């Protein structure tokens, strides 16, 4: 049960990364740092302006979107055609910058967004679950399904999918790649920000949390494949369940072995993801 709830959150974390990866062909190593940033943003809104984190979610989403758009337009577009290795390094550099900025501004202390109802629990069948965890899970599902519908049915969503398939053809149909890339990156970062908010509610944020979250998002994107948000959701749930099962039955220290071991196996056996389609 715990695994499923955690899995929903994992799915949102990986959603933005899979989107950016699939469309821009950038593995965004700064993704975890943006999750961290989103968490801090919501924490600020909650602590200083007393905005409930769930209500503040759209606000965080919009601010992070603008940040992502500006970053892609002003910086990442400059190296987008360089070898894959350079974009990897660039996003790593961004992650270092964000981590140390966060450390300077917020100090290295652990923070949790702690709304007054954080202690309440609710019974689902025979299991008692904390209310916030359930709420976080629901928001995560809504975001994932919303994203899926957005990509399927809106004009922008279709343009994004078209670009992922074939940039040249998309250009011929009137897609402006600079703008579209920036929109996609903005969306990816906004999703990371939302994931950060949710993470901040059920867990702790500190400046160094980014790297491990990036690694998890990676694993989920690979397991779920890059084509479809629903695949990412399945990947997230899968990882959440595997982690909690290993923790319970084998031991805490093996949780990472299990998740990364599965990642390597999936890569070797099905390089386009468990649910990914062959190209």
């Amino acid at each position, binding site marked *: 049960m715990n695994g499923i709830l955690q899995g929903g959150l994992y799915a949102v974390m990986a959603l933005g990364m899979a989107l950016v990866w699939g469309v821009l062909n950038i593995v965004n190593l700064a993704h975890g740092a943006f999750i961290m940033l989103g968490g801090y943003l919501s924490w600020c809104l909650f602590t200083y302006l007393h905005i409930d984190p769930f209500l503040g979610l759209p606000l965080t989403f919009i601010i992070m979107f603008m940040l992502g758009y500006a970053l892609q337009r002003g910086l990442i577009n400059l*190296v987008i055609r360089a070898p894959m*290795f*350079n974009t990897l390094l660039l996003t790593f550099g961004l992650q270092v910058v964000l981590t140390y900025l966060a450390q*300077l501004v917020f100090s290295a202390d652990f923070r949790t967004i702690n709304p007054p109802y954080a202690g309440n629990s609710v019974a689902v069948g025979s299991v008692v679950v904390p209310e916030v965890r359930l709420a976080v899970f629901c928001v995560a599902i809504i975001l994932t399904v919303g994203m899926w519908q957005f990509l399927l049915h809106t004009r922008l969503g279709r343009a994004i999918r078209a670009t992922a398939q074939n940039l040249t053809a998309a250009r011929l149909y009137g897609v402006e790649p600079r703008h579209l890339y920036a929109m996609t990156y903005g969306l990816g970062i906004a999703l990371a920000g939302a994931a950060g908010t949710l993470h901040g509610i059920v867990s702790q944020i500190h400046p160094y949390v980014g790297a491990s979250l990036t690694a998890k998002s990676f694993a989920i994107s690979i397991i779920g494949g890059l084509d479809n948000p629903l695949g990412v959701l399945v990947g997230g749930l899968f990882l959440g369940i595997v982690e909690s099962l290993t923790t319970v039955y084998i031991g805490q220290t093996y949780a990472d072995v299990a998740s990364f071991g599965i990642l390597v196996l999936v890569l*070797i056996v099905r390089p386009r993801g468990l649910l990914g389609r062959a190209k």
Partner: protein
Amino acid sequence: MKPRNMGLILAALVLLAGLPWYGSDLLIQFGINALLLAVLAQGWNIIGGYTGYASFGNSVFYGLGSYGVAIAMVQWHLPFGIGMGFGVVLAVVFAVLIGVPVLRLKGHYFAIATLALAAVMTAIVSNVGLAGQNIGLVLPPLNDDRLFYELSLGLLTITTLTIWALTHSRFGFGLIAIRENEEGAAVMGVNTTLYKVTAFALSGIFSALAGGIHAYWITFLDPDSAFDLTLNVKMIIMAVFGGPGTVFGPIVGALSLSAVSEFLSSEVTSIAGLFFGVVIVAAVVLMPRGLADLLRRGRKMGWGYFAENIRRHRL
């Protein structure tokens, strides 16, 4: 190679080798660290720079080398040299066992698989009794920084000579062919699997030796520090900053970045990391082919070079 360049390199080597006799203790210690990092960057250069496979798992070799020495010396009471050999054997076995399936992956996928392997190894070693689990191992101390310095310098020289020999051999050309076009190389008769695994093992050997020296020098070893994941990123940045796929680029990158980061962390601690990140971002945007390319141009350099780099890669 031109005789003038040869003379310059020899002079630099003599200057470096003599450092323990005129440098301060602090400088020697900094030197050991910087030289070992340069070895790692060079090791990565073989698989990442020449073969074009961006390994994020070279820290595994480093860790295996450290543990090879530590296990041999602490658990079996064998001398240091045999421990180094044991570490190398571990690294080669790992490279072959893991390399065969993983080197089939390309691009990002290879990078991620190796990163994941590095994370898995940390967790596995912290559960192995022989390796002291997550408490680690304490090696018999040997307080001779001069010796360690010369060992590190020697290792770096051997590594660089090997790479230089590579660039003049059939094997090296095969690796470059794989980097430029793997299918093409296979068609031309390069046994790509054999070449890639050999390159992976070769880069592993040097990384393992560096790990072994470091372990004996520090005399203490635990899973988190031996299999430190940030080490991967460090060696890659140094290699790429200096110029991947060149003989001297990674050395230039490793020594200059070590110096910058050492200076910053002693002068302005809080913003050192921040600055490091900015340097990486600026370097990727402005000089994607590394410092070596910049130096090679020498006096013909100008602002136009940076503008040209941006123009080439932007959307």
